[in-house]
């Protein structure tokens, strides 16, 4: 194998894998934070695990995953308990309680970190900010043929005395955490969904929402800790919130949301790594970017893309829906107006000027006329007037019928004065559902409050 392949497998592959796994684990868990509107709990936990990590570090003097994990998970749980206690016993407002707790714990972590570096323990302050995935290194064997062996996976010492193989412990820890996370999310899917959407119901059905919440927080603390080296304890917040939030904008179904969030998280990690590590090289610069930072930026860009283009929720489709509604209402107003004119015996159609004067704006009139013409409800007649087609007349009759029935309803059932009902009916006449226009019932042969026939 040539040198650049070897470098890729030794340096880039483990780091990329670690970053992607970290993003995936956090992204999956973050769904519930977003749904429960507790995103800031993730923020607080991520800040708060720092003293636990550093303390474990100081006590054991090593970077073994397990003590660090214990320390950090402990700190995370302490933070959750403290926040709850401040809210309940101190009656501190919740966001302030979070702020107090995580600021103090984070400050303690920073202080301990300084002590740690004074004690000659190699824990770097930058790691807190954005992790150091580039330090996750694998030493693969030099030949492809030795690759897929057990010894390569667990690691061995070559005859020349070099350590070879051995999947980096960080990657193993991340993979295990991902596995546990997926299993927990599968096993407790129902409980988590119930507690997220209706904690009251969950409680009354016997699933303690408090314990579900605590379990979730412990998982999040765990994910934050094992992701520490891959992404640091601040950027991890982005991975906890962004993929879930992005997926939330794309779908209404929880299952789809979780799958989508996984995809978004993994994509952020992978693309982020590739852009960060190789992007500057492609553009002809030396060195590389901070890969966890670029993963965060990718996650943010994905979110912005979803905000703009997500089906159903994105700005574009909201805008499109609104325009379509606006067009329909303008169209219905126009043809109803022509119909009323016909009712009064004016059969030669209405001019644009007349329509514009009684609609809200020239824009609405133009919009309505063009929409009605395109849908075949009106046609242009000579002398610049428009007339109803048969189809248009049929549709307009339903609209006017709806309008007058609503007026009747408002007067008779709600006791509103007849001279006040028109504007409300003007809005209600446009109501429809899947089965057609919604309108009240009436006795046979009744007139509307203004003594007009109801068509």
């Amino acid at each position, binding site marked *: 194998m040539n040198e650049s392949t070897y470098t890729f497998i030794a340096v880039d592959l483990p780091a990329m894998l670690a970053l992607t796994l970290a993003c995936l684990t956090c992204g999956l868990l973050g769904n519930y934070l977003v749904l429960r509107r507790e995103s800031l709990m993730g*923020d607080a936990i991520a800040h708060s695990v720092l003293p636990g990590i550093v303390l474990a570090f100081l006590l054991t003097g090593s970077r073994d995953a397990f003590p660090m994990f214990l320390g950090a998970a402990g700190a995370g749980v302490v933070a959750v308990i403290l926040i709850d206690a401040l809210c309940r016993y101190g009656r501190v407002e919740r966001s302030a309680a979070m702020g107090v707790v995580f*600021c103090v714990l984070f400050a303690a972590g920073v202080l301990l970190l300084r002590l740690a570096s004074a004690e000659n323990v190699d824990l770097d302050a930058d*790691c807190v900010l954005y992790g150091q995935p580039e330090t996750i290194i694998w030493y693969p064997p030099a030949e492809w043929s030795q690759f897929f062996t057990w010894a390569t996976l667990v690691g061995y010492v070559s005859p020349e005395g070099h350590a070879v193989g051995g999947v980096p412990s960080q990657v193993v820890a991340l993979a295990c955490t991902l596995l546990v996370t997926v299993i927990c999310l599968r096993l407790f899917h129902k409980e988590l969904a119930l507690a997220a959407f209706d904690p009251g119901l969950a409680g009354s059905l016997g699933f303690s929402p408090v314990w579900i919440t605590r379990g979730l927080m412990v998982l999040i603390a765990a994910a934050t800790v094992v992701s520490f080296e891959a992404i640091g304890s601040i950027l991890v917040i982005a991975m906890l919130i962004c993929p879930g939030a992005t997926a939330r904008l794309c779908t209404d179904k929880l299952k789809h949301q979780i799958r989508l969030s996984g995809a978004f998280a993994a994509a952020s990690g992978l693309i982020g790594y590739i852009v960060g590590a190789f992007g500057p090289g492609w553009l002809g610069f030396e*060195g590389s970017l901070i890969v966890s930072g670029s993963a965060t930026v990718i996650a943010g860009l994905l979110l912005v893309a979803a905000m703009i283009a997500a089906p159903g929720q994105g*700005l574009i489709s909201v805008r499109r829906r609104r325009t379509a509604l606006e067009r329909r209402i303008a169209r219905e107003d126009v043809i109803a107006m022509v119909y009323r004119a016909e009712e009064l015996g004016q059969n030669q159609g209405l001019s644009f000027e007349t329509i514009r004067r009684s609609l809200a704006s020239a824009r609405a009139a133009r919009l309505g006329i063009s929409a009605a013409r395109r849908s075949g409800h009106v046609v242009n007649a000579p002398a610049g007037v428009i007339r109803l087609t048969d189809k248009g007349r049929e549709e307009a009759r339903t609209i006017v019928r709806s309008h007058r029935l609503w007026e009747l309803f408002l007067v008779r059932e709600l006791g509103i004065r007849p001279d006040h009902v028109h504007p409300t009916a003007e809005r209600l006449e446009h109501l429809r559902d899947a089965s057609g226009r919604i309108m009240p019932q009436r006795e046979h042969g009744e007139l509307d409050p203004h003594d007009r026939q109801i068509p």
Partner: protein
Amino acid sequence: MIHASLGAITDVAIEWPSLADIVRTLTLRAGYNTTVVIVGAALLGLAGGIVGTFALFRRRALVADALSHAALPGIALAFMVGVALAGHGRSTPLLLAGAAAGGIAGLLAIHAIARWTRLGEDAAIGIVLSVFFGFGTVLLGLIQGMSTGKEGGLKTFIYGQTAAMQASDAANIGAIAIASIILVSLLLKEFRLLCFDETFARAQGWPTNTLDYLILAMVLVVLVVGLQAVGLLLVVAILIIPPAAARFWSDRLDRLLWIAGGIGLAGGYFGAAASSLLPRMPAGAVIVLTSGLFFLVSMAFAPRRGLLAAAARRFVLRFRITRDHVLRAMLELKELVEPSIAADPHAVIRHAGASPLSGRLAILLARSQGLISRSTDGITLTPRGLENALRVVRNHRLWEQYLMHYAEIAPSHVDWSADLVEHVLDPSLIADLEKALSDDAERSGLPPSAHPLTARGRP
């Protein structure tokens, strides 16, 4: 995590300062630089406490956190602009302007996400905080890779570097503290209205949006001037912790402002002093932890809302309740076993449903208050005790009646429920109940028990 430059800072162990040093530092006689730093940090704390009080009431504490993190890309971009225009980027005003711009961009992003999507403000805060910070780190990486080389101490903005504070910085901070005090005292009424009844304020025609933005602007200014000293990761603490601590001491806004300002001032003062005495300690973290200590003390010892006071109140209440139960038990035992006037203390405690220890303590309390007298064959109610016991039993049974007739609770359950509510009686409510149930109440004003009395106390 193996760091090449680590050797440079590993030779330090903590050296504890002497008492003389401490006194000299605290009395601002430890040299010009130290004095400047301490005064600056104290003023920063003062401004943070006052401005933070409003941020707290407007629930903007964590928005402020997002703003401070969002300052990083602003700073980095300002640095790059500086390099592009002037060849270097180490101009503090430029960097701070960048920080403010970053904060404003973050605020706009939060508004956009919270307004145009169905994600809540919480998600918006988290997203802006982390994504902006991530973008900042990418930019920092770029700057490090730029051919001009030096990153110009941009990292000090992350963790803060109080020691680098100069007299002009301290003067700036002081000016901002004074300006915020003046602004707050001018607009106190408006801010108060906004904090406690926003709807009313709007209905009265006050420009609530403008006032809100004014508060955010003050928050941003404090954050930006605090960046250098405390660092953008922790600077929000000077806005959150002092007001949260002050909240334990008072319910009045004007006092709250003074207390929060005072706690912030003290936190900055002692924190900066401590970090100058322990030279390797990161000053921002020390200031935050000092404020955190004040918070802890406030939460524990504040007179009315503090945890100790609350615990003591609960303890006293529970004690009084047990005493009332003992009095009631004695009266009910008298009803049960008519001729024997003196009662056996154990039977009384059992009947009252109290634990032996708390029952005995309650009897002691009642004796010390002259409600019970003790003789060789047991304990008896004194006339005053009898009066009290009658009152308690009367309340209890009135409640039983009420719960049965009005709340439709089964007679077998009312005793226990009445136990819970008889201690929260409002006098006017008692009067109403008495009137409503006067038919039941005969026999020395004592309505009959709703359930058969048994020696076990609980039915």
